[in-house]
């Protein structure tokens, strides 16, 4: 399999690390070599949390160089556009949940929060495909990961990522009750 780099971004507490773990495990189940690097520490207090995931042979650094990520996955709109600008390669793909978490610089500092059009514009500049996931009607923000995983499979966005491998990875990662809820949502999304 050709090497593949995924850059994940979100706000501290959204579950970026969890999502990255699931994707890494699913890739390993496909027999792929994986290398992951997460943010830990101070960034988790509502700050930016990112994960670099590299699948396949031939990579050595756990950190993706700017403009070399094949896929940017974001759990929040501001981090989606930031990920596209800083990390996405020309012709890459963005998949994001359109959740909004205003940073302090917007709330108290008057900085402007990006619009969906601006996200599309950033993707256009890189000749990249954008896939926005509407989160209206999703009451539990912990479900965003599941929404993203279902969409990634529908789009065939990650080589080797299949429904069964994702289910196996989630089952390893979540306690039973949470797994059942997510599995239900995940399967229902794939059937729609």
């Amino acid at each position, binding site marked *: 399999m050709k090497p593949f780099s995924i850059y994940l971004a979100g706000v501290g507490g959204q579950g970026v690390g969890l999502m990255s773990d699931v994707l890494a495990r699913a890739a390993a*189940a496909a027999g792929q070599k994986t290398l992951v690097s997460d943010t830990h520490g101070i960034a988790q*207090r509502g700050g*930016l949390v990112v994960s670099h995931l590299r699948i396949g042979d031939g990579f050595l*650094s756990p950190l993706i160089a700017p403009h070399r990520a094949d896929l940017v996955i974001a759990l929040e709109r501001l981090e989606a556009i930031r990920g596209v600008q800083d990390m996405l390669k020309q012709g890459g793909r963005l998949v994001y949940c359109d959740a909004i*978490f205003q940073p302090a610089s917007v709330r*108290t500092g008057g900085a402007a929060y990006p619009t969906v059009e601006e996200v599309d514009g950033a993707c256009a500049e890189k000749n990249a495909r954008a896939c926005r996931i509407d989160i209206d009607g999703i009451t539990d923000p912990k479900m965003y990961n599941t929404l993203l995983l279902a969409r990634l499979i529908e789009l065939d966005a990650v080589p080797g990522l299949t429904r069964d491998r994702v289910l196996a990875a989630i089952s390893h990662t979540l306690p039973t009750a949470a797994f059942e809820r997510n599995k239900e949502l995940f399967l229902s999304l794939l059937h729609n």
Partner: protein
Amino acid sequence: MSPVDDNPFSVMGTRDKRRFNFMNSEQLLSPLPFTDTAMANHATARAMVETGTRVITTYPGSPTPEIAEILNHVPADKRPYYFEYSVNEKVALELACGASMNGHLSSVFFKSVGLNVAMDSMIQLPMFALIGGMVIIVGDDPGANSSQNEQDNRHFARMAHMPLLEPSSPTETYRMYLEAARLSKVLERPVLLRTTTHTAHAREQIDFGPADLSPPDWTSKFSLENGPYWPIAAAVFPLKRRMLEKEAVFGEAAEVSKFNEVIFSTAGTVQQRGVISSGLPTLAVLENISHDNAPVDVLRLGFTHPLPKKKITEFLKGKTEVLIVEELDRILETEIKAAAFDARISCRILARKNPEEYLGELTVNRTASLLHSAWPTLFSQPEKPLAAALPARLPQLCPGCGHRTAFFGTAEALAKTDITVGDIGCHTLGALPPHNLGQIVLSMGHSVSTASGLALHNSDRGTVAFVGDGTLFHAGLPGIINAAMNNHNVTLVVLENGTTAMTGHQPRPGTGEVGPAIPLPELLKLLGVQFIRDVDAYNVKGVAASVREALDYKGFAVVIARHPCVLQLGGKQKKKFPDRKIPKITVDQDACTQCGICVSEFGCPSFEKHESGKVTVASDVCIGDGSCVQTCPSSALKREGWDQKR
């Protein structure tokens, strides 16, 4: 084929409560070898078990706390090791040293600046026979991702004459611990294993070995025959002589170490050009060479003090040009140039030149820049990151944090000219907007003393220092004793949340969680503090009044603003009452004047400010504490379950 059964990750087939990004007890203590994806820090814990490390101590600090999480997760009666969160890094190191002197393999780990705290004793260790062996792990932070500097602790190995290993990957971390433990036991000297943030937190598949879990031998083996252990004045010299002899033996080990190897760009061919590097940057170099298909060999160094001079000069002799790719300070560069000079090698040695290149983490991109500058025909120009026109996302205090109301209340009591000093912990975030308090920080526990200096002959400006309760026990006590003793005109606000929060809620001394409870007001009184106020941190008016009183008081005054950490409390309550409903906080839009105080001055992340000026509460962020309600001058904030009069 059942997806779950076929999962290569369910090696042990067990369901531990914490399975996300974790190594459960069954894996950690597996007597059999196994393969699994693991974070470098988790792999380190496994290496400790495999080598029979018997005493392990630490003080929490990024990027190392995940090692402790794995070790601490095992029930105490199942551990083949003794594990302790010590009060600070100096204590942790001394404990590990004592255990090693007694014949037990020990390990201590902490973050980069934690070494500074431990240094007074740590620098002594290579003089003594640590008969059990000892591995010291330090987690440096190039790029200062979560630290107050980016100090290069490779210098310390030179200063202390201590051997140094630097991993670049999780697999290397694991293997280097095994080797460090072995060498340390054989030579009866400590070995320093220095990792960095993005190495420590990387995850990959590792082949783990077996572990001997027969009951540990706790026989006390200390003997003065292994001494002397007393290094005062003239007694230093025989100890130092022996230390230098041991250092030379470590140097011989470095020359033959598998962690120092040449990676040829084409097997069987020696290239004209080469790179020498160590640690994580080596991976960036290799990735760039692969990306640009460049004919450049790499001497990858992992056992880096003493440097394998023979291996290095051999590498240099075969080349016309060698680039030293190094992160932070110019240690490899200067030592390699000196070795080349002594050996009269004519190879041209290239290194960083631009002062900007000595700052920050050496990422794949910056490495590409260095390679391109050295050899523009071989390496492509790296793409420049776009100028960020996007709003920053800085860390902030959690919704409901007691520090927020404490800062808000303190601000009410301060004059514009008053000086505030901060410390290290979650409360450091008070320096950011909207609070902007405590914008002077040096190190753990410094605040009361730095404030004491600022308060000297300074009668017209109030001086307020902040410190968290965890940090107080780590390093704040001597400064408090000094301030009380000399009656410095400082107000110390102790932000008490009952835990060591920022690093992951490790227990702090005196809560009663581990050992006896130590009530802070009583402790402070015994230490000679004459003015003590104790208020609920959620009570803004109470905090403001206490700080005002403290500022008026001539001499050392302490205000304890106390409230349990809501992140920790929330986690506990969720387990106890899983169906508990969070009370809703809403903005009464008729009463709201859109003054913006809640959003811009109080600054809870639950508030959302819309373009129209309207403010709403994000119900998925808000935890329903209601500490914001008192801050609204129009009483427009409403909490479910509280009457209008609040």
